[in-house]
């Protein structure tokens, strides 16, 4: 089936839904690199106008990546909940945008709708939405998850403490962790990106974080972000693993390039559940995604990078994750060129994930070869705070000395909390108060008054 829209004397024709979706996407370098972007600004608008007319139900018939060719498509189609879809089944993509922004679309309605949405429908409507639409609609989505604390309550923001070190040095990792905790960060997870994938070194990192959380009775969870196969092996050998991590993408071929498939994720999920380490809930998967990953693995099937990204969320939601985040500016300027593209993509990913029922965080970040700087990150951070982002990253001084990119700092989390009145996860907030690190209003206190400082310092000096 082809699609058409006439503007004056020019008629724009789009041969496939895949082409229509790609050309309706706001401009970004990755779609140009893939050769799927609109050639002119008018063609892009014609595609949006034509896309607005497409019935949502049409996405069930016209699959962007064939059912036989891709297990993510099969997951999407086989898991589709027709009853949940019913309230919006008569709408076009444009009508769906109007409905989402209307008062009819209450938080309860959106929660009930999530299993009845295909990622492609969500991607489509996001392409017609302005940044402010992405903020308001995401804000209405309530996604709450639990392991040792509660993530995603309205008016709250959690932070992943990311204490990476270029040689995985235990004291170096502990020093950054201390810094973050004393700045009130770490409720989403204390999560290390390791350099090494040696089982012995990984085990030392899991034990270090486990000991820290137990010794100080911190209501949070740990994670070492290594390949899922390493985590399954480690669980068999008795590693104290809280969250099970994996990077995922929106096509079977892209996931294969990560060395994973859906069965491996299921095995890892069950291995994590078998440990029963959660105290207030059992959401234990942690997924990372990012626009451009399918293209960089040459596994995008001609589908635009934003739609591929939203398909990854179908993979994530199968495993009831505690945390999902899009590492939005990490991949580089050949996919998202500048601050404008990174900001747009961050808001899209957050909205699309939330609408599909995921606990979305965003790694608000950039590399030094992108046309972006701290001011762009400040903008995206405050926009995401307004949109109700579940969590952000916390890195000492925003400078990740292992991954060589800039993300958000512990100070940045203080900024967004103060500007928007956002509180910590409730259990973690109570712990910070007990440690005298925040006052009753959530305001950070002078760490010199807290007994946590000497105890954490001693822990750091003894780390190995």
């Amino acid at each position, binding site marked *: 089936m082809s699609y058409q829209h006439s503007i004056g004397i020019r008629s724009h024709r789009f041969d496939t839904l895949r082409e229509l979706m790609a050309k309706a996407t706001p401009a970004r370098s990755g779609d140009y690199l893939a050769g799927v972007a609109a050639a002119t600004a008018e063609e892009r608008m014609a595609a949006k106008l034509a896309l607005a007319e497409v019935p949502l139900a049409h996405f069930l018939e016209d699959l962007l990546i064939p059912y036989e060719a891709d297990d993510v498509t099969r997951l999407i189609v086989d898991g589709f909940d027709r009853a949940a879809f019913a309230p919006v089944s008569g709408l076009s993509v444009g009508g769906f945008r109007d409905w989402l922004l209307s008062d009819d679309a209450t938080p309860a309605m959106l929660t009930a709708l999530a299993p009845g949405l295909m990622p492609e429908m969500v991607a489509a409507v996001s392409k017609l939405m302005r940044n402010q639409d992405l903020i308001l609609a995401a804000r209405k989505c309530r996604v709450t998850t639990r392991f040792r604390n509660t993530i995603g309550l309205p008016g709250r923001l959690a932070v992943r403490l990311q204490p990476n070190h270029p040689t995985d040095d235990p004291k170096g990792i502990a020093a950054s962790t201390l*810094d973050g905790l004393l700045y009130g960060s770490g409720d989403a997870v204390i999560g290390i990106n390791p350099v090494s994938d040696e089982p012995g070194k990984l085990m030392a990192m899991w034990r270090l974080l486990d000991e820290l959380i137990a010794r100080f009775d911190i209501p949070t969870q740990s994670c070492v972000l290594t390949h899922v196969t390493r985590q399954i092996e480690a669980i068999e050998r008795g590693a104290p693993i809280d969250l099970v991590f994996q990077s995922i993408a929106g096509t079977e071929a892209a996931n294969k390039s990560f060395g994973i498939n859906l069965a491996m994720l299921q095995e890892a999920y069950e291995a994590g559940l078998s440990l029963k380490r959660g105290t207030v809930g059992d959401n234990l998967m942690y997924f990372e995604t990012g626009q451009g990953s399918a293209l960089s693995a040459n596994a995008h099937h001609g589908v635009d990078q934003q739609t591929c990204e939203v398909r990854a969320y179908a993979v994530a939601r199968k495993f009831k994750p505690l945390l999902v985040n899009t590492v939005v500016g990490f991949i580089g300027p050949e996919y998202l060129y500048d601050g404008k593209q990174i900001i747009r993509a961050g808001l899209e990913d957050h909205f699309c994930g939330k609408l599909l029922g995921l606990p979305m965080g965003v790694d608000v970040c950039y590399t030094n070869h992108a046309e972006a700087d701290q001011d762009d990150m400040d903008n995206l951070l405050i926009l995401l705070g307004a949109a109700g982002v579940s969590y952000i990253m916390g890195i000492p001084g925003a400078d990740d000395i292992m991954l060589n990119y800039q993300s958000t700092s512990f100070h940045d989390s203080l900024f967004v909390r103060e500007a928007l009145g956002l509180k910590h996860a409730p259990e973690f907030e109570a712990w910070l108060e007990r440690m005298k690190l925040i006052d009753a209003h959530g305001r950070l206190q002078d760490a010199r008054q807290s007994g946590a400082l000497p105890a954490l310092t001693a822990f750091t000096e003894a780390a190995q």
Partner: protein
Amino acid sequence: MSDGKIDTLAANTTDSVLPNPWTALRRHTAARIALGRTGSSLPTREVLAFGLAHAQARDAVHLPLDVPALRAQLEAEQWSVVEVASRAADRAAYLARPDWGRRLRPEAAEHLKQLPRDADLVFVISDGLSSTAVQSNALPLLQALKPLLDGVSIAPVVIATQARVALADEVGELLGARMAISLIGERPGLSSPDSLGAYLTYAPKVGNTDEARNCISNIRPEGFAIGAAALLIAANIRAALHAQLSGVALRFDPSKALT
């Protein structure tokens, strides 16, 4: 900048900034810990320190490689030099189109075809994402390698601009070299704007993928020191020439090269 200005700033800073009394832990990590704060915000000195580091990283990406200067330095050390450029016309095109940075411009390819063929090795010095890395570390690395490569024939050094790693495949193929070695500026980190990478490929040809390469990364005075990197690269070259392959298939124990 006068000393008086710095003193004024320091005085203002100490008045309103809440220091973090765990600065001693900085000996365990180069991470930016214990920065202190004013209210919820970074102290002025930290905002400016970050700004300077970012400026240096940006310059590493955007300042063009000074090819005449590098050429003169190489020639002064008796290296003969050839210059080529990729199909990316400028830095903006280079950043947005990695595919263009992997291929030679047609005139550069024609030029290489006129040169003598069949050396064991060709070094391709590429600007990549850090001209700073190349300008400061490429020649010292080559000088350190030279005495380690006795008996290995080496083609003229190729200086490539707006170039990605894989450009060395086309260079090596056109020159009929058994191996191509790309010495290239790596993506600069905030604290490491001058990091050089070395990518070794046996039987270079257009279309090779990364699993056919061996990579030695973070070559810079504060990272992987030049002398040690040269030992490792030379050992890797000899292993690849002997095994007639490179990349993940090459069984090569780097720890033996350094002892």
